[in-house]
């Protein structure tokens, strides 16, 4: 089932502004792929009205975990949801990150909460990925210990220099010696994704980016989450959230 009830197992803070939500579907649901997302219903009133989309962070035998940032009305209410609460969920939705060919070295670039989208990919790539991870400061570097055990290399930057290299993730990327074996997987704030895309085009690198947009339906009906691509407007929820790095018109 793509639309199901789930029980909250845990909803805990991992930083001042970030929470980790673990839920157990109460029905049989499809196995999610890296890059896919779930729409989660918050509360039972009409405010907030719409479900909110969140990337899958990890999956265990019986539960699904997402990592979220407190951003607006929905997530502010979401952090108050208690263990045992039954929620309405849709998913897994959208496309997924294509798995790299043998000749490629996956180069994952995550900015801020963008780590929530690529973490599951890093896990699936079983130690093959090189990860560049940037955040504003040390306190916003999430899932760091878990990440270390999953990847081939981990390079970190913080804007304030409180951990890793001081500077943005783009600074980190510029210093990293890329070659044509590297296949990029990027997720993060729009400005960062755009800079990564421009970098990739300039260096002739291939890759994928995951985008975020306001969504209503999550299943391709409302056309609300459209982004402009070389082939016209495409829906982030249906043709995305993962797009070819060359395809987005900024």
């Amino acid at each position, binding site marked *: 089932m*793509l*639309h199901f009830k789930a029980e909250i197992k845990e909803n805990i803070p991992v930083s001042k502004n970030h929470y980790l939500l673990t839920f157990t579907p109460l029905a049989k649901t499809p196995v999610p792929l890296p890059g896919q997302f779930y729409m989660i*219903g918050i509360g039972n009133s*009409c*405010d*907030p*009205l*719409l*479900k909110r989309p969140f990337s899958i962070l990890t999956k265990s035998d019986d539960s699904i975990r997402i990592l979220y940032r407190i951003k607006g*009305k929905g997530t502010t209410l979401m952090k108050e949801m208690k263990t045992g609460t039954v929620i*309405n969920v*849709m998913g897994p939705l959208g496309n997924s990150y294509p798995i790299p060919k043998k000749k490629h070295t996956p180069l994952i670039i995550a900015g801020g909460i963008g780590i929530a989208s690529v973490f599951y990919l890093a896990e699936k790539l079983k130690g093959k990925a090189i990860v560049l991870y940037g955040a504003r400061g040390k306190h916003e570097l999430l899932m760091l210990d878990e990440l270390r055990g999953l990847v081939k290399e981990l390079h970190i930057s913080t804007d304030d220099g409180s951990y890793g290299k001081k500077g943005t993730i783009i600074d980190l990327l510029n210093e990293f010696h890329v070659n044509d074996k590297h296949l990029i997987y990027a997720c993060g704030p729009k400005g960062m994704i755009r800079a990564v895309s421009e970098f990739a085009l300039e260096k002739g690198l291939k890759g994928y980016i995951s985008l975020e*947009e*306001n*969504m*209503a*339906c*999550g*299943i*391709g*009906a*409302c*056309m*609300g*989450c*459209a*982004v*402009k691509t070389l082939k*016209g*407007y495409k829906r982030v929820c249906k043709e995305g959230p993962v797009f070819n790095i060359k395809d987005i018109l900024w």
Partner: protein
Amino acid sequence: MNLEVSIGKLRLKNPVMTASGTFGYGEEYSDFVDLNSLGAVVVKGISLTPMQGNPPPRICETPCGMLNAIGLQNVGLKKFLKEKLPYIRNFDTKLIVNILGSTVNEYVRLASALDEARVDGIELNVSCPNVKKGGIAFCADSRTLGRLVSKVRKSVNHSTLIVKLSPNVTDIKEPAKAAEEAGADAVSLINTITAMAVDLKTRKPVLKNITGGLSGPAVKPIALRMVWEVSRTVNIPVIGMGGIMNAEDALEFMLAGATAVAVGTANFINPSSTSDILEGIKIYMKENKINDISEIIGGLLIDNPDD
């Protein structure tokens, strides 16, 4: 228990329909709803040639509602007939196609092509607030609307002709009367209410289009009032919509005079809303020993002012 209702020549097996623009071309919802169970499916508005829609952001949430300014992105008539129509034809439900144009001629060409393709119903979108095409211009002036509807009427021989009305007018009874006089088989209302949202942090409108159409529970009381006013004014059936989230909402619209109801924004929150609403209507009828849905339609009890 009889749930059947008539809209023009159309016999719907029950009064629950989908609202145009919220249900894609039907296929998007087939994982969540048994399309065979619905009274009718109203598909996303179709124009003669494909439309790319408005630049993003196109939607945003507001208290108990949402704004959209999609800009009628659609695949166009040709692709609809070839790729989308055959799929929805597989189901035992009535198919209503919403159409939009920027000239009378465009509406006429669309309507004749769809009438020829034997779709069950054609809904004229003369009330989209977000684009010039299919836009408010036709609904703002009742004489212009009347001329459009009579022209389209002449080219529609088989399908039931429905005119979708805009709430963004001073008196919605006027376009309703004009549509009826020009030969419409039914009217549907309301389309979204023109509205806007502002982001204080950026000091910009939230939507790139600046304004958008408000839908969801926030508009329900306005929609109910308009459905009530129009159903007392015209003799053709009224299809009621605007913030219907559950069976109670749907039944309230029917009491106010709607012969059928369309579910829109609720599909986004719960993709099986339409079938849940239908089940809820059946439970209500059973509990209240109502054998025929027609007993509910227009059954609003209004106290005599002298009492």
